[in-house]
């Protein structure tokens, strides 16, 4: 009888990191479905290219760092990076842009810092921002988000340019309109609203609602806590509500703020990345609120149309400071003033 000798505790929760990651990916399904419905197979090519290149770069880096490849691939963190980048891009983007973004995210955003858990920046946002400022033209070429419009792209034959030609052959989509990607779509949508182009605006509302639904799934499954999404939305929406109340803005802009661009995707899937977020509860509230407020500022007065990615990266830098100032009071360390209050 060889008895196991181990340190306590002897029980483990069933929770596992790879499952947390997988749940996150599954929670993007509603949004994926809506995007597919709106933009067609271009969304799928984006996703596939992003995910496979993420796996490829991850495996390569693990090999170079002499780590067990399969063991770390299994944690699904590369999958998450790939999926988030894939969903954030305009549909049917040329393959090399996606590969560049994913490669930068995985290599520079993650492994050069020491791998999962060590990166100060959100890798997906690093990759996204790199291509956004490098290939501005491609990144703002969206096909019209007409209902079912995307399906025409699937027809490789015929007079329209095929999807695969667009993605791999360097052809331009004939019916693409130049618009912001939905991580920075806000003023465009706002402009559309004034032009009564309700259809396009509605499309973004659908996408956001789908992300919100996925986000609620995450909360329910305790993949993430409410602190960051709630504080992010508060930071974004509170200022616009103040502006509306003071008469500086129209009431519709509240709906626009909440349901356009990358609001919901950011709130539940991007800002919540635990690795690059603040640690303590109070820290997370401050972190989320700050990002929300920066997004509001960029949207309202900034040069870029949206700015979730920029806001996230900015606050990533501030995380060590936030962590330092928001340490919880440990048991038995209650300060003198709160003691006085008690007695």
């Amino acid at each position, binding site marked *: *009888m060889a*008895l*196991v*000798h*181990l*340190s*306590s*505790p*002897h*029980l*483990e*929760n069933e*929770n*596992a*990191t*790879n*499952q*947390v990651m997988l749940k996150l990916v599954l929670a993007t399904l509603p949004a994926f479905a809506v995007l597919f419905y709106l933009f067609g197979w271009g969304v799928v090519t984006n996703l596939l290219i992003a995910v496979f290149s993420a796996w490829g770069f991850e495996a390569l880096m693990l090999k170079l760092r002499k780590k067990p490849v399969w*063991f*770390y691939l299994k*944690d699904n*963190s590369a999958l998450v990076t790939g999926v988030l980048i894939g969903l954030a891009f305009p549909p049917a983007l040329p393959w090399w842009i996606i590969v560049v973004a994913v490669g930068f995210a995985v290599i520079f955003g993650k492994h050069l810092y020491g*791998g*999962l*858990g*060590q990166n100060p920046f959100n890798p997906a946002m690093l990759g996204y921002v790199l291509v956004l400022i490098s290939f501005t033209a491609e990144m703002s070429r969206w096909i019209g988000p007409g209902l079912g419009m995307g399906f025409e792209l699937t027809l490789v034959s015929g007079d329209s340019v095929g999807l695969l030609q667009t993605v791999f052959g360097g052809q331009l989509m004939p019916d693409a309109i130049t618009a912001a990607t939905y991580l920075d779509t806000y003023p465009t949508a706002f402009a559309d609203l004034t032009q009564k182009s309700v259809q396009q605006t509605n499309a973004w509302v659908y996408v956001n609602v789908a992300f919100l639904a996925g986000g609620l799934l995450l909360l*329910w499954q305790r993949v993430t*806590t409410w602190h960051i999404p709630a504080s992010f939305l508060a930071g974004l929406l509170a200022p616009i509500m103040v502006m509306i109340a003071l008469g500086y803005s129209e009431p519709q802009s509240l709906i626009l703020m909440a349901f356009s661009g990358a609001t919901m995707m950011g709130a539940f899937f991007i800002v919540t990345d*635990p*690795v690059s*977020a603040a*640690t*303590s*509860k109070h820290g*997370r509230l401050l972190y989320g609120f700050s990002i929300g407020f920066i997004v509001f500022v960029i949207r309202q007065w900034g040069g870029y149309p949206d700015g979730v990615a920029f806001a996230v990266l900015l606050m990533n830098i501030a995380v060590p400071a936030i*962590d330092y100032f928001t*340490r*919880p*009071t*440990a*048991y*038995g*360390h*209650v300060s003198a003033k709160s003691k006085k209050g*008690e007695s």
Partner: protein
Amino acid sequence: MTAILEILGLRKKDYADYAQTSKGQFFDFPGGVHPPENKKQSSEIEIRELPLPEILVLPLGMHIGAPAKPLVKVGDRVMKGQCIAQAQGFISAHVHAPASGTVQAIELKPIAHQSGLDDVCVVIATDPTSTEIEFMAALNPDEVEPQVLMNRIHDAGINGLGGAGFPTNVKVSAKRPIQTYILNAVECEPYITADDRLMRERANEIVQGIQIVQRIVSPERTLIGIEDNKPEAIKALRTAIAEMQLVSTKDATIDVIVVPTKYPSGGEKQLIQNLTNKQVPKGKLSADIGVLCMNVGTVYAVQRAVYVGEPLISRITTLTGDAMGERGNVEVLIGTPISHVLNVANASSNELSRLVMGGPMMGFTLNSSDVPIVKTTNCIIAGTAQELPQPPQEQSCIRCGECEEACPASLLPQQLYWHSKHREFEKAESLNLIDCIECGACAFVCPSHIPLVQYYRYAKGEVRNIQAEAIKADKARERFELRKERLEREQAEKEARRKARLEKAKQKKAAGGQDSQQDSKVKALKKSMLAASQEYKNTVKAYKAADADGADNAEALRLAMEAAKAKAAEAKEAVRQANAGERASEMTELEKKQKQLVDMAINNKVLAAALKEIDANEEREDSDKSEEKTAKEAELKALQEQMLALKSEVKLLKAQDKAAANKESDVNNVNAKLDVNLKLAKAEAARAQKVFKEAKKALEAATKSGADNLDVLEQQVAKLKQVAGSELSKMMDLQKQMKESKS
């Protein structure tokens, strides 16, 4: 809110109504987890007794504090209830024999401890036929003074049965007034149901025990904290309290406070926060905020000690786990080997993979089943490999923050983990690593399966080591600096002396006069010495030549040679004395004595050589030889004794010098003096011992050869022995003094 949680399946609703927690009675505490309870497997079976084991193994350190001191010897007969080891010091507890039998051994044996180390145990071979019992007299708690009750708790060897095993009498004798007395009936660890069962079956005794403690500490209020997953125990306690209050005239009330099931609500600090909304400040005890916390089992033991007079010789322990054949709770004698327990409970040794003492969250694994049940053993889990599987490989920390949400001490577990892993112990310390109660909630929720508690334990150990090292290094540096100072001073003194000598010599030269007169005297002596030795050499030559030639005047020449030799020796001695006289005026006493010693050593060698020579010289007559030999031997002995005396004198002088030098350093002064005295005493004792031994040898030799002055010799030996003894005791006294002064 509760309803929503129930719908979502996050909260079980299988507790009866009376177990409902009522808000306002408790305050909750941060963090906590909900591991699967696994209590039903053992909680529904009545407490049973185990058959008497063949041996009982009683470790002397079952409590926190100094281990008890055994009162019995191997082979002694002991009776059930007899005190076999006595508490030593303030924080300690007695150990009693749980059954009658014979003391088989008092030796190091493996015990149930995290470290896996051995401890001194009294092993009793039990006697199943014996019915002897040695309990104390039963007491009526209402009629005796609280002090008597307190003493009884001490006499019964009771320590906390729930956790660390702190001696209960120390707890209740806290100087500070106790406002709140809390009975910890939470039992938050999964699997364990010992307290649950005890409350269900012996609620009256528990309430009596509570009243005894109430009488001792007179608290303003008494609270029983219990989790809402023990509805039957809650009911039993409430009934017992109601009955008790019907017959009792006392107005001290007992409130049962039901708290939500959440691990680790049974941690003392967490329970205090939960029930009183107060936190025990860092580095303080619960008594400092007027709270006394006691476990259910402890209170039951108190009741037995007072009402029955039974010391703490048995306890209730939960036997559970999938490899445990017959689960449930047993009343088991302290010291029962766990192998016996497993046998009786039909544990499957094939399936058993992890043997845990305590609960699955904070218990520790046992390396073997030979270790005994101790006073704090509340549970034995015989876990199968499926039930308690090997943890999966540790993955990367994704900073998800689950651990922080789970931490009941409001620490930052992941930060502590980073710093512990990267050996940044100072940072870990600054994040209050030491406040970690090692409850395991963080490791339980960690999705990356990081053994966080293990990291914290490691870091805590390192922090302690570093602190100890720092203290040691400080002391060493202090010592080194003092030594350096002393050496420098000595060097300076030496230099000063050298200079003084030089100066004196110069003065002498300058002054000429008297000194030069002396110098010339020495010179004259030297001259005459040289002349004498030259003459002697000449006579030797002449004699040798004459002898070889067979000349007539050889004999005369030989005489002349002898005379010359004597003269030369005389001259040499004169020179030597003159030199010595000159130098003596410069020498300190110590140097003089040292010189003398050197001379004596030379003499000693000369004598020894002479002795050897006598032995070697075969031509001489035997009687002559032995006579001379004894004379020389006596001389040699006397000389040696003189030398010894002189040596110790020299030592004394040296030590005095040293002591004088050390006088300035305040820190080491006393110690150094003592040290010096001790060394002296040691030397003295050694000398006395040596002399005594020699005398004894001489006596033995004399006895063998049948000499007639035996009685005189005997007396001498006895006297010497006495001297040696007294020297030795002097030395020991000094050693003791030294130890005291050092501590």
